[in-house]
């Protein structure tokens, strides 16, 4: 009996940090935000229950347009990251051997040893009007005056794809590595072209990895703040900026809370849709990631 009780206590103690972590940092704030999002200010320091914050979102075009833009751009970034990461992951998983393979994965990881802010500043040094690329274009005569490459959608997409690449490559390489070489050879042997083998054998096999990578990259992108602000400037128009503005600049916490809930809803809905469309379950996908 005592041994059983002791082992129970042990289990509880071991689980405590995780439970505290989830409870205090994730569940509790979200409940608080949910409650907050339904409260309207009726008089100074007087709040009442209401859906006004959500109505505000739909009546003010800036808000829902930014919201839609964030969703669309995030999907675009995820798709671009997938297209870029697939050949890299294929090379790491199927061609590279031993030390080269470890080296390549390390190279992908290397940029993450510095903070996101520093990495983004790096892009700014390259892209700004007085930056490296602008200077190079001028010195080889392709441009007659300084070129501003910052503060447009292209720069935002570039920064976000760069930030998401590793999180796409790792689950993809994992999934591709488990593909038996003989299965690919059999695909060719029975008359399949490169394209057929890719479409009917490699991609279906890698599907859990593809979905896992897409979910991670999409979530990271939707919730990113620094990259759109720094690389997009005023044209960044990312939904996280609206949340930031409500909480910090406007000091309108209920409005910010409503935006936060809407963003959570958006990412959940798109992930659910993605899983449904590809016929994957969350379980197999998480295993792959």
């Amino acid at each position, binding site marked *: 009996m005592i041994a059983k009780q002791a082992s129970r206590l042990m289990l509880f103690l071991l689980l405590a940090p995780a439970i505290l972590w989830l409870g205090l940092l994730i569940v509790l704030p979200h409940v608080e935000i949910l409650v907050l999002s339904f409260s309207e200010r009726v008089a100074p320091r007087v709040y009442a229950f209401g859906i006004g914050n959500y109505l505000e979102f739909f009546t003010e075009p800036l808000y829902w347009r930014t919201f839609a833009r964030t969703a669309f751009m995030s999907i675009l970034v995820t798709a671009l990251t997938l297209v870029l990461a697939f050949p890299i992951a294929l090379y790491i998983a199927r061609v590279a051997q031993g030390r080269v393979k470890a080296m390549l994965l390390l190279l992908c990881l290397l940029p993450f040893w510095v903070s996101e802010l520093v990495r983004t500043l790096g892009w700014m040094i390259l892209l700004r009007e007085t930056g490296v690329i602008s200077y190079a274009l001028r010195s080889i005569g392709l441009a007659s005056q300084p070129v501003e490459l910052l503060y447009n959608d292209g720069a935002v997409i570039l920064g976000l794809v760069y930030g998401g690449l590793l999180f796409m490559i790792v689950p993809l390489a994992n999934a591709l590595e488990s593909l*038996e070489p003989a*299965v690919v*050879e059999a695909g060719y042997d*029975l008359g*399949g*072209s490169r394209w057929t083998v890719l479409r009917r*054998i490699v991609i279906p096999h890698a599907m859990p990895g593809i979905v896992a990578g897409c979910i991670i990259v999409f979530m990271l992108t939707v919730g990113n703040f620094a990259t759109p602000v720094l690389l997009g400037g005023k044209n960044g128009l990312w939904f996280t900026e609206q949340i930031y503005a409500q909480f910090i600049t406007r000091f309108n916490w209920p409005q910010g809370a409503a935006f936060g809930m809407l963003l959570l809803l958006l990412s959940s809905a798109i992930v659910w849709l993605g899983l449904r469309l590809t016929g994957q379950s969350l379980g197999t996908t998480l295993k792959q990631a």
Partner: protein
Amino acid sequence: MTLCIGSVMASSTDLDIVNVIKRFGAHAAVDDVSFSVAPGEFFSILGPSGCGKTTLMRMIAGFEHPTSGDIRIRGKSMIGVPANRRPVNMVFQSLALFPMMSVGENVAYGLTCRGVSRADAEERANRMLERVGLKGFGERRVTALSGGQRQRVAIARCLVLEPTLVLLDEPLGALDLKLREHMKIELKQLQGTFNTTFAYITHDQSEALVMSDRIAVMNQGRFEQVGSPRELYHNPATPFVASFVGETNRLQGEAAPVSNGAITVRLPSGAVVQGQGEAGGKNALAFVRPEAVALAQDPASLGNLPNRFEGRVSAVLFDGAASSLLIDTTGFEQPVRAVLPQAGPLAGIQVGAPVHVGWTADAMKVFAA
């Protein structure tokens, strides 16, 4: 010699390998190999692991390219033809079924690659599954099949394309013994009903002997001998073939001058055996099959045999019809292996019993070492 057959009567062979060499760096994995396979033949390449047989097969399939030499299928050179354009299909060692597809889709895959319509491909796949005894399995997942069923899917997937040649890379290796024995017979029967040319590689001499019309014994990148299972077994051309194909007793000694067609070999102990063959140099290897070793309790009944020895049973290896005895024999370093008689006074012989062994000079093959 095979080269002539290949070029002159191109249509009478399905596969011609002409002086093929494959080097990996300085090492020749396949070293100047030539042979031809006739239509409908079951041809096996038998050799120990690392002898180059897998490399040879992968060159025929198109996954490796010969350093020099030619590979012809129905007289057409395959050099420069990619794997997916060759009229050759392979059954892989791991079978390599497509786990992301159903059984029916696995079989229809090759047809759809050729541009056959989906409905037509499915119908032909179902007909093929019926012929290999898997009727109604089209919708199943390949992971839901037993070892033998997976085997049949792998073969059906090739045969549905009506290839000139089917390559089989030790496909029975992963099966348990009982199923392997069963699949040997089934494979041979399948090959007979479809009348397709099979090239089979294995390191298991029993698989090769049971199924093949002809066998090539391969060692260190070269063919030691090509012939029917009986030829290889009864008339091995080299010491390697003699020891690799079937059970045998191997004796090493010095060759003595030839007298009336027989060669005498003096063993290190001083004992002398007589055999048939050619011994060029001083050292010789002599082989005698266990079933050629006659046993007797009374030396008189072995009176007319040139090789007669006295021994004592050291082990009885009972294995039904394949049972054998190990006999410690005076003058021999290794115990002599003999077949355990199924009937008669010696059938119940026990360890430690004295016994006389003997064999004819014809049963003993002698090679220069």
